[in-house]
């Protein structure tokens, strides 16, 4: 909200502070100031000048020669604006003045004629965008007076950030209340120039009221608890006086006409939106406040937009049709125009939730709806109406009907909240005395109406009735006004929590450390995915290119890999631990899994002069996959050759991971060239992805076994194994047939070539035998080996290499 500094000073007697001090004070009250702008700062040299005459430049068709009175004698100025006329006032930058952009005005000769200064457009002054001509000033001025002062630009505008709970701060009076304690302690409404001193008598009713030939009826009191109206006859619509225009500009508002400006003034000052109807254009004349009917599908608001209505929207209607969307925007057909003479001024209270639903359905937000949605002072309607009437009469003339209308089906009753001093101490950790609590609350409008046994009974002012309903709400007011800075900051004793560290975090920590140790960099990618990469759809995605939640982490990582390759990074090893999403039952949240994925390309190790370069290969991928699976599944899942659905992995070089129950929980392998965008020089790309178990398995406790005291006996076997027999199958058979003395089995060589028959390869195993009790004899070991060879030959067709 834009707040005028001058307005605040008028509202808070005794307030003395710079803009920066006000901003600091408001920040410490919970209303930080985003920016402070003083539009007049850069154009202090500009004065108001009167152009006495303007005639054609003798040497240029489009230029004029003007005689200008800038207060310091009459000078000649060459002007290119089409709208320059004699007898009119304009902003004028005399020779020596500096304009925004460090533009210094100098004496010049333009097409042979002397020009001493510049008549300015609003754009040149940094006040507007239009550049159709110079800025014509209306009103009476003294040539040479400061343009900034004359226009009221010597105010400062503070852009105050208002939190959603503080609708009361959407007004100058509300902001002023937060500053009262650094002024004389209270907020006083400033006197209006030319205030006629109107006093109104009210015709009151709960359903329908009538006065001055106008009726007001509330048909839907659940959405409108009060609707007041005042009739002003014989107004003359025209520009507002200069003081009012300045005030509005200081608060960032644009002056329109006296009647509209008066309603805006009161809204900006008190936070109560008001609306002025042209009485002559209201059928009846009367007002009916009711929900829209199905026969009224559309309505044209005063901005000329035709808007679709629904039957939950509250409409302000005359005797025949809707004339405004209640609390949101007036209609085009009933707004005050230049020829309006009689005005019905609306001052009403609408239900915040209904306003919110309506303006959301209409996809719009207005100054009025913004305030009603956050809560308007239910106790301030008469003050606002009377102030607005006074301002209209003062600025547009006319007379107000002595009888105003006040239709109020639901009367506001201020609430009393009990506040226990002991509870304040329990929550804030500091004891507060009753007198001091009163001192803190009073300037904000809270009244301590009495106390019993350490409990204060506090009356909440209407403008705070929306956010202060409970004891804790008052305690926040006490903490806030006491000042958060004023609380001590001593660390007291505390108990450790009852919640153990989540095991998934421990597993993630372990895996991250392992991946980093293996030379991978951790990547972060957002979980959004393009079509085809997920089945969980975002209903209101921001980017239509990524409307899904990812099923797998690999595609985004491959894109990051490609991004790196495209930038010449030839060695890329990335991993990520993140969430994958899969559709669950209708209407229920998706199924989430925590997964680890990795992508790799480039060399196995950094180039070194002592070894030849070698690209990452299948055995590196398999090792990485086994490491991840081993840590995640603690030995209960197996990595085996297999195939993966989809077109990311090469079927010949893919591993799949199965857990103890046989569920596929991961895979890895070579990425097909069609699945990743790589330059020709890039080496093979590898990827893996493992779902981490949702019930994280604890790392097993290592159990000690005594180190052997007797020597081992080793035997090397060179075997000719048919290609159809997997090495792992042969190894399993060796393990199963070598006897319990087999301590270890190692595959240490593999050969394929002319020395072995076609369709086979030679595989060398080293078997280590040991008995815990005694040294084995060669003969015993040889017997075991014979059994192994026999079974290999019989069951797998494996022969010893001759």
């Amino acid at each position, binding site marked *: 909200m834009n707040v005028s500094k001058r307005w605040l000073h008028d509202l808070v007697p005794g307030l003395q502070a710079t803009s920066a001090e006000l901003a600091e004070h408001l*920040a*410490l009250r*919970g209303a930080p100031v985003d920016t402070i702008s003083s539009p007049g700062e850069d154009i202090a040299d500009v004065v108001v000048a009167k152009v006495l005459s303007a005639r054609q430049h003798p040497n240029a068709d489009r230029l004029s020669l003007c005689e200008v009175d800038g207060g310091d004698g009459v000078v000649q100025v060459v002007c290119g604006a089409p709208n320059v006329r004699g007898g009119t006032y304009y902003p004028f930058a005399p020779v020596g003045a500096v304009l925004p952009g460090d533009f210094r005005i100098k004496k010049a000769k333009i097409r042979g004629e002397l020009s001493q200064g510049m008549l300015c457009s609003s754009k040149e002054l940094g006040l507007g965008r239009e550049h159709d001509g110079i800025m014509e000033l209306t009103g009476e001025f003294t040539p040479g007076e400061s343009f900034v002062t004359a226009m009221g630009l010597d105010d400062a505008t503070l852009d105050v950030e208002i*939190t*959603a*709970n503080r609708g009361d701060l959407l007004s100058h009076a509300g902001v002023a209340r937060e500053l009262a304690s650094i002024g004389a302690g209270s907020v006083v409404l400033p006197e209006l120039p030319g205030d006629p001193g109107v006093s109104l008598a009210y015709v009151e009713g709960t359903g329908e009221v009538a006065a001055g030939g106008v009726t007001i009826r509330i048909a839907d009191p659940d959405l409108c608890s009060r609707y007041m109206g005042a009739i002003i006859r014989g107004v003359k619509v025209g520009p507002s006086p200069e003081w009012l225009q300045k005030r509005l500009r200081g608060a960032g508002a644009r002056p329109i006409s006296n009647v509209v400006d008066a309603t805006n003034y009161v809204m900006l000052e008190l936070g109560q939106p008001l609306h002025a109807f042209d009485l002559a254009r209201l059928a009846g004349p009367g007002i009916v406040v009711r929900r829209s009917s199905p026969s009224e599908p559309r309505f044209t608001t005063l901005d000329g937009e035709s808007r679709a209505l629904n039957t939950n929207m509250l409409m302000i209607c005359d005797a025949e049709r809707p004339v405004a969307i209640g609390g949101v925007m007036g209609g085009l057909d009933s707004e005050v125009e230049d020829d309006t003479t009689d005005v019905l001024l609306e001052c009403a209270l609408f239900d915040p*939730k209904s306003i919110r639903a309506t303006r959301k359905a209409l996809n719009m937000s207005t100054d009025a709806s913004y305030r009603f*949605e*956050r809560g308007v002072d239910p106790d301030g309607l008469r003050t606002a109406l009377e102030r607005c009437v006074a301002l209209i009469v003062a600025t547009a003339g006319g007379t107000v009907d002595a009888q105003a209308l006040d239709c109020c089906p639901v009367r506001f009753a201020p609430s009393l909240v009990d506040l226990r001093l002991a509870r304040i101490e*329990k929550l*804030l950790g500091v004891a507060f005395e009753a007198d001091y609590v009163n001192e803190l609350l009073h300037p904000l409008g809270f009244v301590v109406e009495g106390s019993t046994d350490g409990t204060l009974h506090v009356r909440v002012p209407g403008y705070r009735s929306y956010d202060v309903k*409970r004891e*804790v*709400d008052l*305690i*926040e007011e006490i*903490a806030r006004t006491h000042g*958060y800075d004023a609380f001590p*900051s001593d*660390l*007291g004793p*505390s*108990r450790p*929590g*009852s*919640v*153990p*560290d989540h095991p998934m*975090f421990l597993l993630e920590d372990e895996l*991250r450390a392992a991946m*980093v140790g293996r*030379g991978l*960099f*951790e*990547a*972060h990618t*957002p*979980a*959004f995915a393009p079509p085809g990469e997920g089945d*969980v759809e*975002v*209903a209101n*995605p*921001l980017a239509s290119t990524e409307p899904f*939640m990812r099923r797998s982490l690999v595609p985004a990582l491959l894109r*990051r890999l490609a*991004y*790196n390759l495209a*930038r010449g*990074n030839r060695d890329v090893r*990335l991993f990520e631990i993140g969430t994958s*999403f899969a559709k669950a039952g*209708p*209407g229920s*949240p*998706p199924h*989430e899994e925590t997964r680890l994925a990795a992508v790799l390309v480039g060399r196995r190790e950094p180039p*070194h*002069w*002592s070894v030849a370069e070698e690209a990452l290969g299948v055995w590196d991928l398999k090792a990485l996959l086994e490491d991840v699976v081993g840590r995640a599944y603690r030995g209960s899942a197996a990595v085996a050759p297999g195939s993966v659905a989809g077109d990311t992995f090469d079927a010949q070089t893919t591993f799949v991971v199965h857990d103890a129950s046989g569920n596929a929980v991961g895979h890895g392998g070579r990425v097909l060239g069609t699945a990743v965008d790589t330059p020709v020089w890039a080496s093979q790309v590898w990827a893996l992805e493992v779902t981490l178990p949702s019930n994280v398995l604890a790392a097993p406790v290592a159990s000690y076994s005594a180190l052997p005291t007797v020597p081992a006996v080793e035997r090397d076997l060179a075997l000719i194994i048919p290609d159809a027999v997997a090495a792992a199958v042969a190894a399993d058979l060796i393990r199963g047939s070598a006897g319990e003395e087999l301590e270890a089995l190692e595959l240490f060589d593999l050969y394929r070539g002319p020395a072995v028959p076609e369709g086979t390869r030679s595989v060398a195993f080293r078997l280590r035998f040991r008995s815990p009790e005694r040294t084995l004899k060669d003969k015993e070991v040889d017997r075991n080996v014979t059994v192994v060879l026999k079974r290999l030959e019989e069951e797998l067709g494996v022969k010893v290499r001759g």
Partner: protein
Amino acid sequence: MTDSNPIDALRALEAEALDAISGAPDEDALEDARVAFLGRSEGRISAVLRGLGQLSADERPAVGQEANRVKAVVTAALETRSAALGRPAGASGLDLTLPSRKPWKGGLHPITQAVDEIWHIFRDLGFSRARGPEADTEWYNFEALNTPLDHPAADEQDTLYLVDSVLLRSHTSPVQMRTMERHEPPIRIIAPGWVYRRDTYDATHTPAFMQIEGLVIDEGVTFVDFKATLAEFARRYWGPDTVIRLRPSFFPFTEPSAEVDVKRVITRPDGTREETDWLEIMGAGMVDPAVIENAGYDSERYTGWAFGMGPARIALLKHGVDDLRTFFENDVRFLGQFAR
């Protein structure tokens, strides 16, 4: 060999050789020393080794062992001195100035590093880590946290929805309720995790980002504890001269609510010290009694405080990164700058 004890003689020779080596002013002098002690034909240590055969079988092993030891020590001293004189080893030796053979270096993402640093401080303050789903219901994301859906506060975080009342959590605060449902006080947790908002990518916004929730619930927890713990965190993270400032704010699930700012003291290379501006680091406050009641706890008995902070922003400020989107590019040259 003389009559004196051959081992003593070897030790004297060792001392003499080491003196000559350390005193060698250049390569030529060093080579002279090598020849004098280890030279194949004239070297004095070589001579001892050659003469071993003439010793008695009793003496031979001990003297031989000692002679070999002295030879090794002197050889090492020659190499060290040679390297010190700036000459790479000769044709037969290794040039040890050549680069070493290293494995690839990996590293954690800078945001993870920030999360870990923050976590380690809170761990030392008695906290543990909790987590919850990233897709959650309106109840956990809003209503359980005292945020009615028809209140303007529900708009402040523009939420991404999946179906009906299921959404991508817009903050980590749903973990508050999910943790309280499963555990009894005292609660002392942080909850790092991804959150989602309907924001466009720019230098300071990304639609998915990390957040760290904090929650403390126990008897006797006050605003003073809240303020003191966050001040302690700030000092441990940014240094002992760091101060915090709490500014009143509004979050539906805390009351009183605060924005927390820090002011650090930076020591420049020339030793001068400078205070930074106030820097907003988190939203926080005392847990609203309505939230405590929603968890099934007695709000008269239990009080608490909570916070939410953005580690990406903290990492950005810490490392001088000027655009949050850089964190998502995952350029290995960028990630390598944070490797340890």
